[in-house]
């Protein structure tokens, strides 16, 4: 009997495997790869650097100006001098405003330009990847690269500037302390080694707790998400109590780990406070003696106290930024790893634009393997003359989908492993976009984009007139239901059309194919359950769709198969039979057998029912 706590932890242990979050603080490889992105921004970066130097200067100047005012003018009663130095002080203040504002916007501008470039490049890199890549890679992982990791880099750019600023002010303060009085300067810096020791001990511990806090919250959110998604099962199986118990364990663990993280990060506060005041106390003790010896004056003492108060902030920031650096480097590494994945399918350098096609398709001796040695199609030969419909049938895994994917050039056939010819052009020798823009493909699962019905039907062909769009919708019988939607063609389809039925989505994807007016149409017939009314609509839409085009259909419906000009039967990657329905039925081949077997199942179920009126669909 396991306890609630163990069950809860075991359940989500897999959610705990967070991706590697930290790299080394400055990875030369990542920095080198970033350079081409930073270079175009060099003007803005230069502006930012200059502004940053000025800003750091104005900050360091403040205590010095105050000290000087006291020592040089106030103590000697020089009113004019006091007015002048106050004027300088105010000018310095204005300069602070300008330099701070400029450094911020210059760096944000540069950073945003860089990010737009990087995101765009990443996107186009992903676009160039072939389907092989997408077959292997989860969408979620790519999403977190483009959004999460790029976002990390953005944070990093901001942090880098702050760090540079912090570093400069730290440096400025040290220099100012030593210049103003090197002995007193050295005394005030005696606490430094102590601070470094504390920081070195603190940093890795704080990081560990930070990671723990992050991973526990992601587990909490994963558990919540799952419970909401599965709420119907939860309720029907009375799991609420058990689940709340499990959730409480995870939630409590998160609360505890966050508190432990806070204890660690707040633990630095007393250290800094104690070191600051200790250092100031030293300055006062030694400074007062030196003042009595007339080696220093009072104003300098004031300036020193102010410097020391400002001294620890940059150090604290830098320590925190260190973590940020490491995370950014890990992100950078992942981003460039993605860039390093070479698209395995690119247009040949001398690829021609495909001229307007007639639609003659020929497959010559076509063999293809996703993984070396495992052939999915074997020496397939097929000729479909322009304007004809070819139906492909066969059992699961016969290679039907692969065959049509090769015609649409989703994958490239290895040289010497046969050819796909369209109007006599080898598809590997033409620019892919010029070819596929003249073809359309309707997938088994209709895919719609978030956007209006109009945008979905027109899709790439935004220039198509509304009249032609409506015409297309009418041709496939989609106009009727679109018209009934709240905003007609301007109805926004939430989350890829969840507000539509599967059949309606299918009809929209048909309309999209018609608007594109392709010469070649590739269709994977839907098998999902659709109500009878829509089913009839789809049947008739299909006929409109196929008219006057070359069509390759992975067919499941008897009516589609019977109406095809030619039927090919595939099995285990081989084309085993070819002919019209009647021709194939006359023989005693696989097709005839599949056909009869299908009916045998039906007959058994129907018992003594009625004769199948199988002609009903195809002749209507």
């Amino acid at each position, binding site marked *: 009997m396991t306890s609630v706590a163990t069950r809860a932890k075991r359940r989500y242990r897999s959610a705990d495997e967070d991706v590697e979050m930290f790299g080394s603080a400055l990875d030369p490889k990542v920095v080198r790869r970033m350079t081409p992105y930073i270079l175009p921004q060099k003007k803005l970066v230069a502006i930012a650097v200059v502004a940053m130097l000025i800003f750091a200067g104005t900050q360091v100047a403040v205590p010095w100006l*105050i000290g000087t005012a006291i020592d040089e003018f106030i103590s000697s009663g020089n009113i004019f001098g006091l007015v002048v130095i106050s004027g300088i*002080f*105010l000018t310095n203040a204005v300069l602070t*405003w300008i330099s701070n504002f400029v450094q911020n916007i210059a760096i944000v501008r540069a950073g945003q330009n860089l990010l737009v470039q990087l995101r765009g490049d990443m996107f186009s890199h992903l676009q160039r990847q072939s389907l092989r890549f997408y077959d292997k890679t989860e969408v979620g992982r790519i999403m977190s690269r483009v959004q999460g990791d790029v976002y990390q880099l953005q944070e990093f750019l901001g942090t880098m500037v702050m760090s540079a600023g912090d570093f400069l002010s730290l440096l400025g303060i040290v220099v100012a302390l030593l210049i103003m009085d090197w002995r007193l300067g050295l005394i005030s810096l005696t606490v430094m080694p102590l601070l470094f020791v504390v920081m070195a001990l603190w940093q890795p511990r704080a990081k560990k707790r930070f990671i723990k806090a992050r991973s526990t919250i992601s587990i909490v959110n994963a558990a919540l998400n799952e419970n909401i998604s599965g709420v119907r099962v939860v309720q029907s199986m009375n799991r609420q109590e058990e689940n709340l118990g499990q959730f409480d364990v995870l939630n409590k663990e998160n609360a505890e780990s966050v508190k432990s993280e*806070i204890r660690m990060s707040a633990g630095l506060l007393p250290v800094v406070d104690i070191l600051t005041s200790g250092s100031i106390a030293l300055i006062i003790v030694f400074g007062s003696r030196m003042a009595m010896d007339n080696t220093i004056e009072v104003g300098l003492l004031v300036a020193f106290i102010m410097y020391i108060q400002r001294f620890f902030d940059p150090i604290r920031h830098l320590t925190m930024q260190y973590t940020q650096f490491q995370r950014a480097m890990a992100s950078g590494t992942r981003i460039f790893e993605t860039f390093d994945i070479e698209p395995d399918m690119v247009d040949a350098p001398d690829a021609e634009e495909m001229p307007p096609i007639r639609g003659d398709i020929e497959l010559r001796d076509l063999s293809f393997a996703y993984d070396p040695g495992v052939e999915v199609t074997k020496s397939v030969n097929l000729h479909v003359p322009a304007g004809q419909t070819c139906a492909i049938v066969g059992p699961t895994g016969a290679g039907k989908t692969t065959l049509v994917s090769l015609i649409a050039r989703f994958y490239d056939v290895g040289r010497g492993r046969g050819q796909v010819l369209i109007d006599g052009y080898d598809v590997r020798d033409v620019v892919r976009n010029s070819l596929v823009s003249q073809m359309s493909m309707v997938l088994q699962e209709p895919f719609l984009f978030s956007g209006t019905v109009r945008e979905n039907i027109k899709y790439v062909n935004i220039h198509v007139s509304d009249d032609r769009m409506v015409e297309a919708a009418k041709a496939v019988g989609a106009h009727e239901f679109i018209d009934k939607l709240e905003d007609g063609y301007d109805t926004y389809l939430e989350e890829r059309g969840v507000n539509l039925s599967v059949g309606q989505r299918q009809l929209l994807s048909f309309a999209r194919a018609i608007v594109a007016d392709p010469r070649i149409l590739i269709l994977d017939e839907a098998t999902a*359950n659709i109500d009878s009314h829509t089913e009839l609509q789809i049947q008739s839409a299909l006929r409109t769709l196929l008219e006057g085009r070359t069509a390759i259909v992975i067919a*499941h419906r008897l009516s589609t198969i019977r109406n095809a000009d030619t039927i090919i039967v595939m099995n285990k990657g081989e084309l085993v039979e070819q002919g019209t329905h009647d021709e194939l039925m006359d023989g005693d081949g696989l097709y005839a057998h599949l056909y009869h077997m299908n009916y045998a199942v039906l007959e058994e179920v129907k018992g003594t029912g009625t004769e199948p009126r199988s002609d009903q669909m195809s002749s209507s």
Partner: protein
Amino acid sequence: MEVLLRILRFTIAHKWRLTLAYLVSGAGIAAYVLLPKLFGSAIDRVDMGLQTGTISESAILQIALAITGLGVVRGLLSFGQTYLSESLAQEVVYKIRNRFYDHVQHLSFAFHDKQHTGNLMSRAITDIEAIRMFVNLTVVRAPYFLLLIATVSVMMLHLDLQLGLIGLVLLPFVLIFASIVRVRMRFAWLKVQATFGELNTILQENLSGVRVVKAFGASDFEQKKFDRNSSKLSEQMFKAIQLEALNGSTVLTAFLVTIGFVLLFGGMRVIDGTLTPGVLAQMIFFLQLLSQPVRISGAIVNNMARAMSAGGRLFEIMNARSDVEESSRALVLPRARGHVRFHSVGFEYKPQTPVITDLDLDVDPGKIVALLGPPGSGKTTIANLIPRFYDVKRGRITIDGTDLRKATLKSLRANVGMVQQDVFLFSDTIAQNIAYGRPEATMDEIIHASEIAQLHEHIASLPDGYETILGERGITLSGGQRQRLSIARAILLDPPILILDDSTSSVDSKTEYEIRKAMETVMEGRTTFVIANRLSTVHKADTIVVLNAGTIVEQGAHQELLAKGGLYREIYDLQLRPQEEVMMEFDVSDDLVAEKIA
């Protein structure tokens, strides 16, 4: 305001910790404001010493020791303050998160039909985070910051009225300015968030719709769409950060300007002899002290605005009442025999659009009822009414004569099992997924259930067997396997009443056979309602109930109804038959192929 009060109530529940946080903060203020005083008096002593030629070393040492001591005290107090306020906020969030979780999992189907998971998740993540920040910053720390500003102001005025006024004259303006800019920043960031979401959608759809994109050669089109949005995002981000830079620079400069004037006028007074250099230095130290609380105070207004809208959204969900409520006098329904009866039941999801009207149905224990009808005829609704996922609007449903509403939800649902076709899998082992409704089930029971459900063979073939993790981070099961897992779950629960959703999309014939076999076993001896689509299930039923527009139009056995030539006949011809005519994906044995090709 009510929203903020409600958050406050959560905070006040930890009254000791809150009081302690306030006490520590108050003590922190005292330690804080004493430091500049000590610095100032040290300066004055040195100044006096320079004029008189002697200095009391012991007095200086005393001051130095006091500064060090105060540093230690202040350091410990700031630790206490930070830890107490952050951990208090964490406790509040912990409690709210638990309540949210429990509330949401008890809300009825009607609620979940309307709410997207994504929306609920962003309530739980973003809005709860806003509440955490509100408790931390506004409830616990804001009084501290305001009191600190007030104390320092009083100290400055007390120290020297004229110079103090010069030092404070800009303060109200800075506070107002910072608050306004912060609120504007919030709107700018909200815009950024929205655009970020759009960009996410474009990217995600591009990736999951990659086949469509490639089939249409649409990569240029998609690239433009993406770039347009990406530039928009970056422009909005720029604007938001610009506001931030404006705010930061202005607050910083305002303080410098103030220090400049204090230096000028204070310096003149020192020259006049009406002020000591130590007091001037003290003034400047005080001004430095003010800059942090002033900067943070600007954030408080924004923080409150954010907590109000976030809390409003969150509490709206936590206030939502379930449509299906348990009566306070509800009784535990013992194991039922399974006599289910609908007495003139009426139901609708939206007013004025009835889904079921005046439905009567009497099902004897152990009988199989197939519910059949065109989409929207009310099949699924009827099934959902039996375990009270929704409540009937009119009439009543009884099990063994007891009105469903008189039983506790838990005991009712223990009597009604569900087998869904697209069942939800949890990120857990296969064993735990099967035992989901009975976490205490033994391994033998789990294996036995999956054997009956025709799933054992497949599970046993997996490398980790029953310990294989399913769900988002684990392996996925095919549609047919999921359905059988759902059957296994039901077998383990062994309910006397069973609801079976059989509107499966096509599967190959072997799977089809296995599912049919599993279903036949699980239905045995239970009152079963089958939402049917396939002929094979329908014709096995004791009674076929044909529905149309929420009423029963025909009822009887297969042959009987076929002969009648009514709606059943029509559905049979139109829907069932063409579906079976579909050339299914057959598994063909190698021998057969070899024989046929030869």
